[in-house]
């Protein structure tokens, strides 16, 4: 459903090459007209956008160009595997098994040997996009954070093997695990069914929280402000909800008990829509919150460079620090909200309505 627009892009406007060239010319003209300050602002905007985006190399210090390339894996009538250093940050065309690829605005497009990119009237590239399974910065971050979570909790679990009282790090982690169990799972799902959902709830909670915290680092590895990641999480919640649901759950969707028959017909489509809206809201909420937080923080940091007045600089520095602390809270809060709503949907799926 979400993939189809890419295919549309790929097959569209191929016959409008001349028009697109005009567009490019027009675009460049506009750039020339920009004043020095406007250029700077545009650069900052681009920087922030780039910082929030996924990328094919792991940038540690952008200004100094410190970082390392990551493997690019493409499926384009055969598997293509090469290092992202071949792109030279989009400056050159990468060749693999007779196909040519170019990095343009953080996306890989299939091009000819010269790297020609054609555009439609909205200045969107119309080149074909290969299926991209590259180990990007975000994928690498997910792997590393996943490994971190795994080893931290494996160690924590092991500390229970000879005594039942948590020690060291466990003293900090156990209350969190109990928090998920006693404040999220049991109140929303109920004592009878909560056990089978605990693994998912705990994993999703710590996964989101750790990734949110990783996004707070200056490395620009905001994984959770990527719609694909939140979509993946919401999809799993959606699937678990549907596949573990009881008869009552579907009964409440298609034949709402306790209301007159005409109302049942009215409610059924609304309820059915709700089934999809719930995980959709989960996806958008996490994505939007994390993205907004990062944009606000980075904009404030950007303002530090815009203002030359030292008083204003100080004020914005203070504000940035304050918002950073708020963001730390939000990192936890969003993980909590996601887990909490997930538990709520699970609870709805297994609820037993004795009153009907």
């Amino acid at each position, binding site marked *: 459903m*979400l*993939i189809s*627009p*890419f295919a549309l*892009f790929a097959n569209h406007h191929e016959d409008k090459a001349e028009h697109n060239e005009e567009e490019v010319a027009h675009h460049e003209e506009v750039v020339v007209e920009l004043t020095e300050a406007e250029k700077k602002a545009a650069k900052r905007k681009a920087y922030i956008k780039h910082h929030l*985006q*996924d990328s094919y190399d792991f940038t540690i210090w952008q200004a100094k160009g410190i970082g390392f390339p990551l493997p690019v*894996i493409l499926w384009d009538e055969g598997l293509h595997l090469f290092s992202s250093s071949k792109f030279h940050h989009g400056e050159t065309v990468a060749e693999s098994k007779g196909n040519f690829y170019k990095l343009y605005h953080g996306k890989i497009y299939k091009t000819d040997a010269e790297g020609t990119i054609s555009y439609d009237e909205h200045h*969107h590239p119309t080149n074909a996009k290969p*299926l*991209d*399974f*590259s*180990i*990007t910065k*975000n*994928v690498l971050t*997910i*792997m590393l954070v*996943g490994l971190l*979570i*795994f080893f931290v*909790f*494996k160690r*924590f*679990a*092991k500390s*229970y*093997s000879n005594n*039942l*009282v948590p020690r060291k790090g466990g003293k900090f982690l*156990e209350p969190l*695990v*109990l928090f998920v*169990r006693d404040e999220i799972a049991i109140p929303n799902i109920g004592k009878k069914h909560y056990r089978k959902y*605990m*693994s*998912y709830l*705990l*994993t999703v909670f710590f*996964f989101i929280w750790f990734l949110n915290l990783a996004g707070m680092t200056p490395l620009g590895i905001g*994984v959770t402000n*990527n*719609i*694909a*990641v939140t*979509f*993946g*999480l919401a*999809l*799993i919640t959606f699937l678990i909800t549907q596949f573990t649901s009881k008869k009552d759950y579907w009964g409440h969707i298609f034949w709402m008990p306790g209301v007159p028959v005409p109302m049942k017909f009215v409610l059924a489509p609304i309820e059915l829509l709700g089934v999809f809206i719930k995980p959709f809201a989960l996806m958008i909420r996490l994505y939007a919150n994390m993205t907004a937080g990062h944009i606000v923080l980075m904009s404030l940091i950007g303002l530090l460079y815009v203002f030359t007045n030292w008083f204003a600089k100080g004020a914005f520095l203070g504000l940035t620090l304050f918002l950073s602390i708020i963001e730390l809270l939000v990192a936890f809060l969003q993980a909590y909200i996601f887990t909490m709503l997930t538990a709520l949907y699970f609870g709805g799926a297994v609820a037993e309505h004795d009153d009907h």
Partner: protein
Amino acid sequence: MEQLLNDFSVGLFFWQTILFVVLLFLLRKFAWKPILNAVNEREDSIKSALDSAEDAKREMAKLKSTNEDLLNEARGERDAMLKDARDMKDKIVAEAKVTANEQADRIVAEARESIQHEKMAAITELKNQVAILSIEIAEKILKEELSSADKQKTIIDNVVKDINLN
């Protein structure tokens, strides 16, 4: 929305989903199950410890009341025993008194009898002594009376005179 869809990375979604599911199963096996089991086990053991403490408390209370009962019983028994002892003492004393009285009476009676007996013996002795003395006196008198021929002749004469020849 278009921007959002354009930003959607299929590769990232693919990796994220796979990695997340792998992480979910690994954590379930190696972390969540042992952790939750340990926590449950601990909670159960705390609960059972509390329960057994409550039981012990109840047991103690029961024991205390039993002790109280035992004590009361013992006290009652002691009182009864004391009462018995006192009664016994009174009885013994009374019996002893009676026996002593009887004994005393008997002794007095025996003494009296003995005295009577001794008295009678002494009287008999005295009578015998008096008789012996009387005989001795009579013998002496007789010897005195019959010491001379004249006197003997007088006596024989008196006796012969008294004898009536019938």
